[in-house]
């Protein structure tokens, strides 16, 4: 007797979960980076992903904001993509080879770079 109830509950819970995959989900997390060039790199890489509708990164606050269709992509997908172009975020570290190819002013792992002149880029 109890098993079917549990099963139904599970099913219900499952559908609720499925429904909670929002079409316009706002997400935000920290992404390491320095300057306007970083901003361009992060935003360009992410907005081209399937399911990412809006992407914005602030060099001042290091906050990355996006609006995504959860049915088509996840926060992890985005973080992975960002790491692939050279930027670290929580749990996702950019490969050394990619990081090494970043322009000097974008090498955010070196604290000295934040004091560099980033000009207008």
């Amino acid at each position, binding site marked *: 007797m109890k098993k079917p109830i549990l099963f139904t509950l599970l099913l219900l819970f499952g559908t609720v979960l499925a429904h909670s995959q929002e079409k316009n989900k*706002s997400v935000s997390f920290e992404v390491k980076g320095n300057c306007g060039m970083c901003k361009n790199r992060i935003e360009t890489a992410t907005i081209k992903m399937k399911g990412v509708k809006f992407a914005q990164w602030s060099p001042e606050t290091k906050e990355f904001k996006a609006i995504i269709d959860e049915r088509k992509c996840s926060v992890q997908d985005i973080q992975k993509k960002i790491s692939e172009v050279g930027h670290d975020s929580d749990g996702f570290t950019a490969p050394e080879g990619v990081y090494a190819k970043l322009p000097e002013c974008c090498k955010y792992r070196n604290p000295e770079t934040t004091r560099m002149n980033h000009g207008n880029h």
Partner: protein
Amino acid sequence: MEIRSLLLLFLLALGTSSQAQIQVIGKVIEFNEKGKTIGVPDANIYWLSSTLGTVTDSLGNFKIPYHNTLRKLVISSVGYRPDTIPVNRPNLGNIVLYTRVVLDEVVVEKEVASLQKSLFKIQNVVSVDSREMLKAACCNLSESFETNPTVDVNISDAVLGAKQIQMLGLNSPYLLFTQENMPSIRGASQVFGLSFIPGSWIDGIQITKGAGTVINGYESISGHINSELVKPLSDKTFFLNLYSNNYERYEFNSRLNQTIGDNLGVGMYMHANLRDGIIDANGDSFLDTPLGHQVNFMNRWQYMNPQSGWVSFATIQYLSDTKKMGQTDFDFKTDKFSNTNWGSEINTSRMDISAKVGYVLPDLPYESYGLQLAYTSHNQDSYYGLSIYDIQHDSFYTNFIFNSIIGSTQHKFKTGINFNYDTFSELVNSTMFHRDDKLIGTFFEYTYDNLEGLSFEAGLRADSHNNLGNFLTPRFHLRYGLWDKASLRASFGRGKRGANIFAENQQFFASSRQIAISERGGNYYGLNPEKAWNYGISFIQKLYLWNRVLDFSIDFYRTHFKDQVIVDWENPRLISFYNLEGTSYSNSLQLDLNYEIFKDLQLRATYKYFHVVSDYATESLEKPLQPSFRIFLNTSYETPKRNEGSQWRFDLTGNWLGRQRLPDTSTNPQQFRLPSHSPAYGLINAQVTKVFSNTFEMYVGGENIGNFTQERPILSNAAPFGSYFDSTIVYGPVLESAYYVGFRYKI
């Protein structure tokens, strides 16, 4: 001179050899709140990396023995930023110390130029901010384009003296004017509308060359000029400006803003002017500049709530304007409609009410809704000698715009619906004209950005209009980033409009010309609407040359008329209006170079070439009164800002206009004939502004400093009621050089 410098060298040498024989003297000063210099007493003076030193006396003077090994003096005092100076002469003169300012954050910024050409916008847009407006001699929108090479300013005629603007070799009716993205300066206000917007109310202007966008309508052919007014929530609390010139022209501008709570602002703006000088320097018995007065009042409400996403404006403007022109002996009380003297009077009253509501979804920053509503009532009563011209134009405009994306912000779109209702009632001498224009239109504009340099904007409108019919209007703009800091742009688009032939050409009333309309069965005075395609290509390169920004741009635009109302001035007895048969086009080429030659000295240089040709009834002719080229040079210099923002600003503008074809006067008697072309001529304007502080500044300036005037602006001026009277052939200034002075006070 040489002996003195030799002596100095000798003294220095002596000092070096005999050690501490020579005394180095100097004075340490600071600027007080009023900008005056005062001595700093008890300041420490010591040789760098030594303990040898002294202090200044009560007046800031000091004396210290010279040391040849210690080359630098350190000057310091509590509360001031220390300074280190090399000692290369015995008298160091005044040394300025600045107070130490404690800041949480130091922001070093370079102000962007007041005239900006965008590298990234898809359309070819020049942005002009309010600082540029201050360089213009005076106080309304028409005069604010005089330091701007994109737009050409010319004078409509010798009597009215209205300033008309042109783009790409085409008159202002082919331009779309918007005020905060709602159409303005159209219909009845076409000729004088620019003088109804005071310069001090303008926050910025965006000038788009070429087809423009479909959102604001189908009428623009050569370009789009949008003016943004100051906004109560961001404007200064109080602004006052007074201006006067040597021709008894006085202007008054004031703005008062109040914030109510966090989100609501209200502004009261006032403009008044008076032109009181009876000037006839050329001795032709006609006033060189109109007499007049204007009262212009605006009340704006602004609501902005970033949390909820709601933005709203409500604006009401009332204007009353009077212009009086004609012979100096004309008595406006008794001579009206009499043959004794020739005079003219134009009385305009106008009311504008508009509202805008915008909503941006707080969770979806790319999605927004906008609604624009505007009502205008424009009434002009006027007479020109024995001719009468009255126009009443009422207009209702509404536009709903929805912004969103397709998939991601790489693909944006704007779509909406637009409804207009205009009524025109005109009295031309004894003939009445009435017309209603009803429009419903929808538009869709798609913007794509591949984020790697390619972006384009493709728009389409579908309109249904009672007089223009059902038609589509396509517009397309593309931008491609060729290489670093270089953009290539291309555009094409179509425009269509019905010509308000009397309102747009009302200067002809100040002549003996008869009106001749060759009716075609169209809905605009029997004429068919105007239709044209515009194509353009432009290139811009910005680069750093010796650490300063240089930008270079070149563009070429061609406007090709499918149908046009030709305004034919070629018979000096007539003004003829007829539809184009054959070809009509305008080609325009512009080259620009902007560079900061040395620190704070900006140079703008422009060369423009025009070729504007239409098939007239008899032959193909160049557009009359169109300079074949224009060279524009502008230099501005600003001294570094001192305490309280005090500085000097200098601005010098030179224009050289190529010769212009004059309308044919060969059938006139000998004494009323003009040559086939005008001479080329130059104009120079200059302005000096002294900023005393962030709240107060004064300016003086001159217009037409070279004092060029047209030799004979009015034909048959001695017999204004005779058949050869004509004031419409004006290729240059009628008024001699003007000098002005004014101040601005703002808190």
